[in-house]
Every structure is written in structure tokens, then in C-alpha cells.
């Protein structure tokens, strides 16, 4: 066992940047994924067959293929078509599309958990579809879906590790940089793992706490 804290200390700025980058790309992707998820969830309960099938195909296609394949498709495929994005932007697109599919299912199940009477009551009060969703259904559904949503954000934070292969400096990439420069695999990888653990453990506790409070 040889764990040299001096190496960790020497590369502390790298780890700090990477830690912040991980949080940054996770929260930006989560924000967009939430938008995709809410729109997708609403489409998934729509009575329009075409809208429903398009979203179902999207969700099934994303859930049945690995994120790595999606990432390769976006990262190597788009430049082939002549579209070039920065690593950060490529990562955000991949993570948004991926998490969006899972959040779509979470939102759908949340909306369907609201009793039908609520929708009927608001419609009979003369509300239109939009204000019914905004004022009555979504606020209630949101309370139900918060714990699984936090759970999904843990998955999202862990998925950012794949952004290291497109050279975005997040925690995994930082570990690779440290290992390449100082040839100290334990210091590099274990420190990154610890930092991931800090973020994810906090989120997992939060999710458990919210679930308990709801019951």
C-alpha cells in the first residue's frame, strides 16, 4: 500500500477544477433533461397516437442502448455530417438525451399517479388543458417524482465519467491526467472515486430523506 498524499496535494487544483466541472455538466444536463422529461411525459400520456409513438420510440431506443454507443454516435457522427461542437456541448447533448428518456418515464408515472378526479374537476371548472397541467396536475405530480428524480440525478452524475473519453476535464479525466503525469494510479483514481462518492452519497441521502418525509 503506497498512498502519497503529497501527490494529491500537488494536483489539488486539477481535482478542484474537475470536481466543479462534474457538478457543472451534471446540473446543466439535468436542467435540460428535466425539460425534455416533462415534455416527453406529457406526450406519453397524450391521446394522439402519433405523438405517443414518437416518444415511445425515443424512450425505448435510448433505454435499450448503452450511453457509450450514444456518445460515440454523437461525438463521431455529428462531425461526419459537418457539425462540430465542443466536448462540453457534446456531453450535454448526450447526457440530456439519455437522462431525458428516463425522466420521461418518471414524469409519466408521476402524472398517472394523480387521481383522475383532479383532472375532471379542473376541466369542469372551465380550465383549459394548459392551465390544468400547470396549476393542478404538475405541482402534485412533481411532489411524487422528486425522490426518483434525485435518484436519476445520481445516475446522471455517475454517467458524466464517460465524458472523459471525449476529453472533457471532469473527475475521471482528472484522474487520468494525474496518472499520466505522475504515474500514481492509486492517488489519481482513488481520489476521484472519493470525490464522486461525496457527491453521490449526499444525493442518495437526500433522496432517502425526501422519500421518508413524503410518507
Amino acid at each position: 500500500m503506497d498512498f502519497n498524499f503529497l501527490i494529491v496535494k500537488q494536483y489539488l487544483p486539477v481535482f478542484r477544477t474537475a470536481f466543479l466541472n462534474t457538478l457543472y455538466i451534471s446540473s446543466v444536463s439535468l436542467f435540460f433533461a428535466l425539460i425534455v422529461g416533462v415534455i416527453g411525459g406529457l406526450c406519453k400520456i397524450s391521446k394522439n397516437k402519433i405523438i405517443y409513438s414518437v416518444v415511445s420510440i425515443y424512450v425505448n431506443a435510448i433505454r435499450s442502448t448503452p450511453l457509450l454507443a450514444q456518445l460515440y454516435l454523437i461525438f463521431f457522427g455529428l462531425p461526419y455530417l459537418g457539425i462540430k461542437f465542443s466536448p462540453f456541448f457534446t456531453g450535454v447533448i448526450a447526457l440530456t438525451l439519455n437522462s431525458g428518456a428516463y425522466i420521461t418515464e418518471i414524469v409519466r408515472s408521476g402524472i398517472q399517479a394523480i387521481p383522475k378526479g383532479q383532472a375532471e374537476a379542473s376541466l369542469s371548472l372551465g380550465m383549459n388543458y394548459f392551465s390544468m397541467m400547470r396549476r393542478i396536475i404538475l405541482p402534485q405530480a412533481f411532489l411524487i417524482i422528486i425522490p426518483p428524480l434525485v435518484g436519476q440525478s445520481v445516475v446522471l452524475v455517475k454517467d458524466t465519467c464517460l465524458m472523459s473519453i471525449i476529453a472533457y476535464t471532469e473527475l475521471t479525466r482528472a484522474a487520468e491526467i494525474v496518472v499520466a503525469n505522475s504515474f500514481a494510479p492509486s492517488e489519481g483514481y482513488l481520489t476521484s472515486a472519493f470525490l464522486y462518492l461525496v457527491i453521490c452519497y449526499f444525493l442518495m441521502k437526500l433522496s432517502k430523506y425526501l422519500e421518508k418525509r413524503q410518507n
Partner: protein
Amino acid sequence: MDVIEISKHAIPFLMKGLYVTAYLSFISGILAIIIGMIGGICGASKIFLLRWVYSIYVNIFRGTPFLIQLYIVYFVLPSFGITLNVYEAGIGTLAFNSGAYISEIVRAGIGAIPKEQSEAALSLGMTPYLEMKLVIFPQVIRIIIPPLVGQLILLVKDTSVISLIGVFDLIKVGRELAIASGENPIIIYSLVALFYFIICYPLYCFSIFVEKRVRLHYDSL
């Protein structure tokens, strides 16, 4: 047609990769189920020490990305004197990673069985082992199959990450094809995604089917 030409060339190679992916998934899936069953029983046990070890194991594996775990096993363990080849490292890490999630599923499943069941079994004079085997587990299996299948789908998808330490599975073969032969990456990676879809989508349908059957069973009680 371009697409057909490229597919004709690529599919024989991808089939070899598919075989490796299936092999990785199968072996690590079985190991993960075994680890998950043992872990779940430890997590639901009354012995404090077992529950403590269990929660450390589950939190560490669920709180860090699979890729980092893989790198630690493959690059860090050698400095502790444990050297594994890519297959051992990949399968072992994946089994322990999925095993952590399956443990949680099994633990929750055991927790969902009413306490009276276990009390009744014990008052009939069963040993704890017999109680688990004859009373608790048959009921737990029925509850956990849908989430278990869901977890196995994630496992199949996670095998793609093992390619990053150099195993020639489906996605690595696709990547080599796209780089080495300079073929249209969109077609190649779409084919790779299609292969994964062919494995995972039937599993999804199966898990939804089982979930419906289980719900029907409970509604009829």
C-alpha cells in the same frame, strides 16, 4: 446502396463482438445474482455487523461510477499485488457493481414480506434456513423479478464500458471498424446500437410482461 455495402462488410465483425458482449453479460450476470442474493440476505439480517458491512459495500459501489471502479481494479490493484487480465477485471467489477444494486432489490423484496410469515414459520418449528428456503424466498422471487430484469438490462449496457480497458466487445469492434477502415461512423455506430437494442428490448418487454402478471396475481388475492 452505401448502407447495405457497409453493413455487409461490418456485420460479420460485429457478430464476433456480440459474442464477447453476450459472454461478458452472461458470466457477470450470474455472478451478480449470486452476490446480490447473499448481499440482500446480509442486508436484511438481524446481525448488526453484517448489515454494517453490507451498507458500506452497497454505498461504495452505488456511489461511484462503474468506469472508475473498473480503472481502480485494473490499474490500482496491481500495486497491491493483485494483477487481473482485462476479462477478469471486467467481469469481476461488473459482477460486484450489479451485485450491489441486486442486493438492494433483494433486501427490499425481503422487507416487503409481512413479518407474520416469518413468525408463523418459526412457530412451526422451522430453522431460519428452512424458513428462508420454503417460506420467504419463494414469495420474494415473485416480487423481485421485474426490477431484477431491469437491473440485468443495465448490466448488459454496462458491458460496453469494459471496452475502455481493451476488451474487444461489440462497441470496441464498432469503434475499430469506424477508425481503421474509415467507414461512415454514423452507420457503424447505428448498427452497434441496433445490436444492443436487439438484446435489451426483448428483456424490457419481458420485465413489463412479468410485472403485469405479478400485479394480476396480487389483484386476484
